[in-house]
């Protein structure tokens, strides 16, 4: 058991980072019924921006810059690639999302020259080494779960108690009726992407602190896993996404700890298929019946 403890701690931390990405998926799915395949790549771009900005400017400038640029990116993707297809079949929007993902990866390849960008200047305080239960780890591992939970509470407050939050809830219940009730659909949807990208940017800063470099494909896996977490927890549900992400993060690291690293990715997808077949609505999802 002693040997598994560091993996458990790591799992909680990775789970927190997945949770921050998963919320982006679950919010967008709740409102647009769209799997935003580009979200993982937004996460990767946030990592790249962090690498570039932290190398050239002080920390109190680089962190806000990462957040702002990522939010702008998310907003632009929605306006450019999803808004024109609002009346199109769902599959067209999904294809557009895949296209955006492809585009972002290729642009990132062009700008980075295809080389993984080393994280030379990680964010100072959280990348320090600390000792926990006799195990050495980076401080980010400890900070992540708390930061995640705090952000989730802030988000839940936003959704339950503000006007825009009410709009989001209304749009996710019934797109067309909400429009008839005078809710400005486009600004609500943009807000969703802004929140999702903001959280992905925070997640990226935490995630890549633990990694030596950011490659253009770095976003794919965490993105897909966060999506699985969102499905596992019941897509459209924020608490579900968070719980699902922590469970996936922990089990993945434990599988690594038991010596089956090859299967830590496969486990996540096996879980996905099992969940989809046994309980497609996930842990906390609402049951939706299809009308003819």
């Amino acid at each position, binding site marked *: 058991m002693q040997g598994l403890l560091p993996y458990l701690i790591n799992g909680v931390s990775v789970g927190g980072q997945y949770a921050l990405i998963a919320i982006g998926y679950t919010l967008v799915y709740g409102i647009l019924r769209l799997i935003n395949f580009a979200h993982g790549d937004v996460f990767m771009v946030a990592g790249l921006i962090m690498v570039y900005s932290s190398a050239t400017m002080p920390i109190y400038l680089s962190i806000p810059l990462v957040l702002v640029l990522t939010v702008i990116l998310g907003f632009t993707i929605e306006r450019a690639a999803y808004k024109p297809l609002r009346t199109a079949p769902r599959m067209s929007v999904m294809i557009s999302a895949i296209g955006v993902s492809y*585009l972002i990866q290729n642009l990132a390849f*062009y700008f980075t020259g295809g080389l993984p960008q080393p994280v030379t200047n990680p964010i100072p305080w959280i990348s320090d080494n600390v000792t926990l239960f006799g195990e050495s780890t980076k401080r980010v591992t400890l900070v992540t779960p708390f930061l995640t939970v705090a952000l989730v509470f802030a988000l839940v407050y936003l959704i339950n108690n503000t006007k825009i939050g009410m709009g989001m809830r209304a749009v996710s219940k019934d797109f067309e009726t909400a429009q008839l009730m005078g809710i400005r659909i486009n600004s609500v949807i943009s807000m969703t992407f802004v929140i999702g990208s903001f959280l992905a940017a925070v997640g990226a800063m935490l995630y890549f602190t633990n990694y030596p470099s950011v490659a253009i494909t770095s976003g794919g896996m965490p993105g897909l896993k966060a999506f699985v977490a969102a499905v596992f927890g019941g897509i459209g549900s924020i608490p579900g996404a968070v719980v699902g992400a922590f469970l996936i993060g922990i089990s993945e690291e434990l599988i690594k700890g038991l010596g089956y690293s090859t299967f830590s990715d*496969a486990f996540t*997808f096996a879980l996905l298929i099992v969940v989809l077949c046994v309980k497609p609505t996930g842990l906390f999802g609402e049951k939706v019946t299809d009308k003819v």
Partner: protein
Amino acid sequence: MKKTNRETIITAAVLLVVLIGAFALDAALPSYHIAIKVVKKACVYSLVAVSMNLLNGFTGLFSLGQAGFMLLGAYSYAVLCIPVAKRAGVYQYFDGGLVQFSLPEIFSGVLGGTVGPVVGMLCALLVGGLIAALCAYLIGLPVLRLKSDYLAIATLGFAEILRAFFQWNALGPLTNGSNLLKNYPDLGGAAAYVILVGLFIAVILLLVNSTYGRAFMAIRDDEVAAEAMGINLAHHKRLAFIISSFFAGIGGGMLAMYMGTVQALSFKSAMTYEILLIVVMGGIGSITGSVLTSFLYIASLEWLLRGLDSGTFLGISSPIFKNGFRMAIVSVIIMVVVLFFRKGIMGDRELPDLFRKKAKKEEVSGNE
């Protein structure tokens, strides 16, 4: 829709010209020439794109598992075709591997040195396809009950599981773990690829035009209505999934053949995305579109747009033409097509439709 003689003749003529062109390429150019490579790779992509179109375009099942099935086909082909003498070198970490025979060699023992290897390679391709089809049957049991985006993500997950599985060291004697498989034979030049892929696509075309094909399209247009008309949904969906995977498996085998080496690592979900985007660009539901776009896409990426990466394109030199620029350009074009030309190059038209006389075309569109 009855085709007139004129369209049939022109279509046949176009196909004949393509075939003669392939033979001419083989005769005129050395086998390592870029034009031949482009034709070979584009053929492989055509087959895979058409197989994906059968599922996504004709049956309306949005599956993203294509890379997984290609992986199965590629590995089957490679494992069955590496010459026995070279196995020790390829499987150097696994004592020469588990499989100690090679289909091309077995068949050349029976049928002689010229026909035998070809038969053996074709058999290996078919075995790959069958394995992919079997896997599709098994995975289809639970997964095909899901709808639209859930189906997409489940098949995507399945492909990722397969990829992890093939890299597992315990399977090393069979799959060589995460190391390369290599040294297996290639079928031949551009003409061989064109003929083989042409045959497979012809089979798919016959299928699409059969009662099964019409049932698939009915399912795509309206599941509930199709069921009410007496189409067995589960049966037809499974059939489409299995057939599509069969051809994806064969396509994977041919990709292995073309590339010369196989590694599980390269069958990422990005490969599926690439093929999906080819299908979308060509027009969802048009086999001709998928084939045309495959050729356009591969030719521009591998050959025509090379200059965008290496500094000089169409005689213009610019510092922005550096590594990765052509992919960026191509993906921008793809996004433009996806957003503004949603029907793709061909819409749902096929090759003979292009040669129909103007007046008739209007009549057809008037009927729709």
